[in-house]
């Protein structure tokens, strides 16, 4: 773990991405403190006003402060997605560990359910769930969790399988350690790199998806500020005030780009896939040499 952290610390892009993400999250949590105005306050006289001292990013079609809406939008656009992601990963990890560690019938059942869930395209199922249960952020996040856990469970299962037959796991089993202890102390830390890589690679696509659905009007309902919905409102005024499209679009982009870059850096630092591949290749070579 320390090794990975020191590698990431040297990567300038990764550090700046991490800084941006942390900054945005902090601003989002303390939105009341950072926002200059009330995001819901309507001001008919300031419709589509340009930037000013009081309203640094100008005003939207109802004269609401753009910057405040952007800052409060962090909660819906980023923080809730992170919470949903955390739930997805938890479900995926628990089921993946159960399937990978205990094997047998439990494994069979979990994997068949995963197969069924994965055979549906996730975009379609998200629409279906929103269609059935009605629009709203809650249903979108629920759909994300329902559609994504199977993917995680499957990856983590195969990761766990790599470690269940390792000597140190066998040793703790033989020396009478409790199953819970083995899972917590030996299996979970071992698959942690894979969890981190999967999570950081998925967050940006999740943010894009949630804001896309809100853009369509299926997610967050007005007047709650959300980046995708702000963009859809700005789109209606595209002909006269094209500037309105910039703040929310740039915000989404910065967030998604930061998470993608960070994900790539973490993957490089942990080198999950490549290391396994290289090791196998070397082993093969050694065998060939010996023969």
């Amino acid at each position: 773990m320390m090794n990975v952290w020191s590698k990431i610390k040297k990567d300038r892009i990764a550090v700046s991405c991490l800084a941006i993400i942390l900054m945005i999250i902090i601003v989002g949590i303390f939105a009341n403190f950072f926002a200059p105005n009330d995001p819901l306050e309507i001001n008919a006289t300031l419709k589509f006003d340009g930037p000013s001292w009081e309203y640094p990013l100008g005003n939207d079609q109802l004269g609401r402060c753009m910057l405040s809406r952007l800052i409060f939008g962090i909660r819906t656009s980023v923080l809730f997605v992170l919470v949903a992601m955390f739930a997805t990963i938890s479900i995926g990890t628990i089921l993946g560990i159960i399937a990978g560690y205990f094997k047998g019938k439990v494994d069979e059942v979990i994997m068949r359910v995963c197969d069924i869930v994965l055979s549906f395209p996730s975009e379609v199922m998200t629409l279906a769930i929103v269609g059935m249960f009605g629009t709203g952020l809650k249903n979108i996040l629920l759909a994300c969790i329902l559609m994504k856990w199977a993917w995680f469970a499957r990856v983590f299962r195969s990761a766990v399988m790599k470690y269940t037959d390792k000597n140190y796991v066998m040793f703790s089993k033989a020396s009478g350690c409790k199953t819970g202890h083995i899972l917590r102390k030996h299996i979970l830390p071992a698959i942690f790199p894979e969890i981190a890589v999967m999570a950081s690679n998925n967050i940006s696509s999740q943010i894009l998806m949630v804001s896309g659905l809100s853009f369509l009007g299926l997610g967050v309902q007005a007047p709650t500020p959300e980046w995708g919905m702000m963009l859809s409102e700005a789109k209606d005024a595209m002909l006269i005030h094209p500037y309105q499209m910039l703040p929310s679009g740039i915000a989404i982009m910065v967030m998604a780009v930061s998470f993608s870059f960070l994900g790539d850096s973490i993957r490089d630092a942990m080198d999950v896939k490549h290391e396994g591949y290289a090791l196998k290749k070397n082993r093969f070579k050694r065998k060939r040499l010996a023969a």
Partner: protein
Amino acid sequence: MRNYIIRRILTIIPMFFIISFISFVLINLSPSDPVEIILRANGVPVVTEELIEETKIELGLDQPFLVRYVNWLNDVIHLDFGKSYVTQQPVFKMISPAFGYTMQLALANTVVTIMLSIFLGIICAQFEGRMIDRGTRSFLFIISAMPAFWIGTLAIWFFSVKLNLLPTSGVGSWTNFVLPTMVMSIGYCGFYFRMIRNSMLENMNENYVVYARSCGVKEKVVVKHIFRNSIQTAVAAFCMAIPGMMAGTVVIENVFAWPGLGRLCVSSIFNRDLPIIQAYVLILALSYCLFNIFGDIVTAVLNPKLRKA
């Protein structure tokens, strides 16, 4: 080989039952009462308990769950998806033109994406680590992190409003394809082009390439060999791209007012028109499955090693 293909095709049957069952269950899980939606949509002023009961019997909703499922499945096999709650037209009649439009857009996207990513993949693998490679990679990386609806609206503003070159929305001529295809394929390209580039780079150090080079084979021919070997991983991914794009067009269709499935589905969600949503889920999940199998077969044909598995 034939056995493999037959086995793979036969898996459609259980898949069809699972998919149809799930899309049927989803409708029945919906908290809103279909009878009430129908009566409201038809402008019935006072919805009484008796009226609800009557309509329920008329629609066969009083029967047990499994009976309804079998009846519905029987209708679906005969391409009868029921009637829209709102327009009272057969769902099939509404879905089929939309399906055609979505298919057109998805195919155009797939063709452009494949050509663009093969072209960029080869170029970047050839000039690995140079300016052109790094530039293309970072450009596409950032583009793929941008929301498609934002690029779409910016493109409409720039190309249609500012320059007045292309139509803003709708269908009709080939010019209508330009903007949606451009916006969508550039997003997908970032993924596929990296895949082609990486497998080309992996292949470049293989023995057969070194051998061909040392024999003095022309560079053009060597690249051709490398390309043939590296395209295999991409082919399966491309087959999966078509259904993925059919599902992924939802946002783009709404931005460009494209009268396809996605737009129909989103408007049905707002109207709570459950039969259309159900048909949408069924059709897309089924085509997802079919293309998945098609992709597996193509990969097996290209790579004999996989056939035994």
